């Protein structure tokens, strides 16, 4: 792909966003940040994106809600959405999958694996 892959990271923790930003930009990705589901939707309303990486536990609109809204909308419905969270229970995974998540990465993430995961879904 000739164009730089653009990733939206959604996490209410600024340090986690900074970590993701650091890991992804140093691997050559173009990274945008949102601090919860609502601001992510606001950003998505006016921007194009290749991959969304979202936390689950967030104020206002959580990760499940965000995924459902993206899948339910028209503009970004086919975009890969990776869930990045400390929770790894099957119940949560099933919920994320039902909402339409593309994949699941457990925090704390390994930069190489994160990048591999992004490359795996970025189309």
């Amino acid at each position, binding site marked *: 792909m000739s164009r730089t892959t653009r990733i939206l990271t959604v996490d*209410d*923790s*600024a*340090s*986690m966003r*900074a*970590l993701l*930003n*650091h890991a992804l930009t140093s691997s050559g990705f173009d990274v945008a940040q949102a*601090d*919860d589901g*609502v*601001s992510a939707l606001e950003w998505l309303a006016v921007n194009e994106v290749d991959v969304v990486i979202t*936390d689950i*536990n*967030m*104020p*206002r*609109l*959580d990760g*499940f*809600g965000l995924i*459902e809204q993206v*899948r339910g909308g028209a503009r970004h419905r*086919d*975009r*890969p*959405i990776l869930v990045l*969270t*400390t*929770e*790894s*229970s*099957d*119940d*949560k*995974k*099933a*919920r994320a*999958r*039902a*909402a*339409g*998540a*593309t*994949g*699941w*990465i*457990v*925090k*704390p*993430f390994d930069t190489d*694996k994160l990048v591999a*995961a992004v*490359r*795996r*879904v*970025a*189309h």
Partner: protein
Amino acid sequence: MSPEEIQQIFFVECEESLAAAETGLAACKAGTQDADTINAVFRAIHSIKGGAGAFGFAALQAYTHTFETLLSDVREGLVPLRPQLVDLLLRALDTLSDHVTAARGGGEAPDDAALIVEMEAAQANGGGAAGDAPDAPTPDAASPATASDEAADDEPAPIDMMDLDALLADISGGFESQPQAADDRWNVHLRPRAGAMRNGSEPLLMLREIVAMGGECVDCDVSQVPALDGFDPAQGYLGWTFAMPAEVSEDAVREIFDFIGDDCALEIGEDAVMPPVVIEPGMARPAPAPVAAESAPVEAPPPVVHEVKVEVEAAHAQAPAGAAPAAPPAPGQSIRIDLFKLDRLIDLVGELVIAQAMLVQRLDNANVMASEELGLLESLTRDIQESAMSIRAQPIGSVFSRVPRILRDLAASTGKHVKLEVIGESTELDKTVIERLGEPLTHLIRNAVDHGIESAEDRIAAGKPPEGTLTLSAEHRSGRILIAIADDGAGINRERVFAKAVEKGIVSPDAQLSAEEIDNLIFAAGFSTAQTVSNISGRGVGMDVVRQNVKELGGRITIESTEGKGTTFTLTLPLTLAISDGMIVNVGDQTLVVPLAHVVESLRPGADDVQGLGASRHMLNVRGRFIPVLSLREALGASQGATSPEEGVLIVVDTESAGQAALLVDDIQDQRQFVIKSLATNFRPVEGVAGATILGDGRVALIVDVDGLVACALPAHERQAA
């Protein structure tokens, strides 16, 4: 941004999370146990755990994990939130705070073993076994199990598939599709499902990854592809078999697909066969074109459809909970700004205020009547100034929220249980002031509990409730902020304070002091009324340091104490450090600014008020008390100006080290806000001068460093005054 900087952000977040959890648990304790509150606490702990893992703080991560697991069960309603549990959670939070401090300072992690046991017990007792155990099933274990279950359910289909595989292998000749082949390669069968496409995956990328690992495609199962009119592009009809080199581990392959989970059926192993096609609901069904496909879709759906339905229900159940928080306005929507940029803005606003004042003065001098536009400019300037200030302002609640922790620690060490009442925690003041307020406030609270509030027995004997009450309040009053720390304890024992001060040589035994003056003795350096040095006062901070801290913030501290009823310390602080109130005074041809924080009163002395002392010294009689007079003209070496008190105005000021003094000036011009410009950065430090400011007419005026000036100009007087 460097990793260290990111780590700093994390610690700032930890502070915020700890405060949020404290607030939430306090609300729980007070009886507010709704889902939002508990969720907020959970989220705070969860967030610390996430960061701790990311930054490699193992002890912090392990501890928050236990904490979070318990909270998770509370949130799910599996463990009832009884008062004892709230107390346990509060204690756990204290230890968490210690953990964060240890992680930040590189110190030793607190001993949390007992608490972990307690938390685990609380979780087990609450029926937590059914709860969500975050790390119990490994991600790898989940999907293959499901896949093989499905394979078992769909017994007939795999056999068909096997035959086809074998057939295809025979036809293509030489390709090995059986794992038992002489070659030590091993096979992976995979079949992406509809969900993969629907959820944004691109199976092609995964196939490429397998190829990149050295996998060789030995078979592509196209047998399930329906006729064109029954074809749904979103379904997964194709299956692939790859022969993987022996050196590639099974786990490495599983890892690629672990990611996509059930959306790609994967079979690895000696007896593995190609997984069946699963046509997912909600999509166009293919026409039953190939006979072999018939059996698979018909038999496969039950488990899958069932599973999807459950998930959808779960998702629906989740939806209101997920959507609900959007309704109330989010309190924490904010952006982070480099403090430097903010200070630059405040600085510029300061310049704007000056420029505006200069313009007014110039127009006034030119006899241009204050027009409507000028009034508008003035009010806009004031609004901009206030807005800029409010950006730096934070609610004092961030400081107050640490108090419950202090009180719990004190209760543990002194046995005095103190109830906390907080008033006006949303009162805002400058960030820097807030940051520097923590230490003096902490000491005042320790002091209030240690020295102010009596033991439970003494309180009962005095007819008071056994539990003491500490009231913290904050309010804005005429451009300043008042913070009061009030206890309902025994009040200051003035006889003891006086005796102690005499013993320490702070006052002479025959000094006649008012009650207020005796109270203020506790701020004297080297004073302590504690009969034994307790571990609370053992932090090496005396009340003199508290007063010094407050003074450095441009504030004042006053005491009001009633014996038997309690003591109230009141801090009066400026809202910001960049702009201050000052008295503009004239000395000869100089204009000076005296910070209002020091000014007690100003007066034009009568002949009887001032007494000469030697050739050129004077003492001012303030209601029976004598304080030294300091001529600013002399101190500054000015060539003109008032030399004797009768010719000018005296400003009585409070100083840190030399008590009160009276500054002699020619006259007072005005009293107004001024923007402080550092002299040290623009010129060099000058003794007796705190900085400079620009006046409305554009001239520079020096700001008097009252403490420094009085201390260096009046050493002899100081001794005489004492």
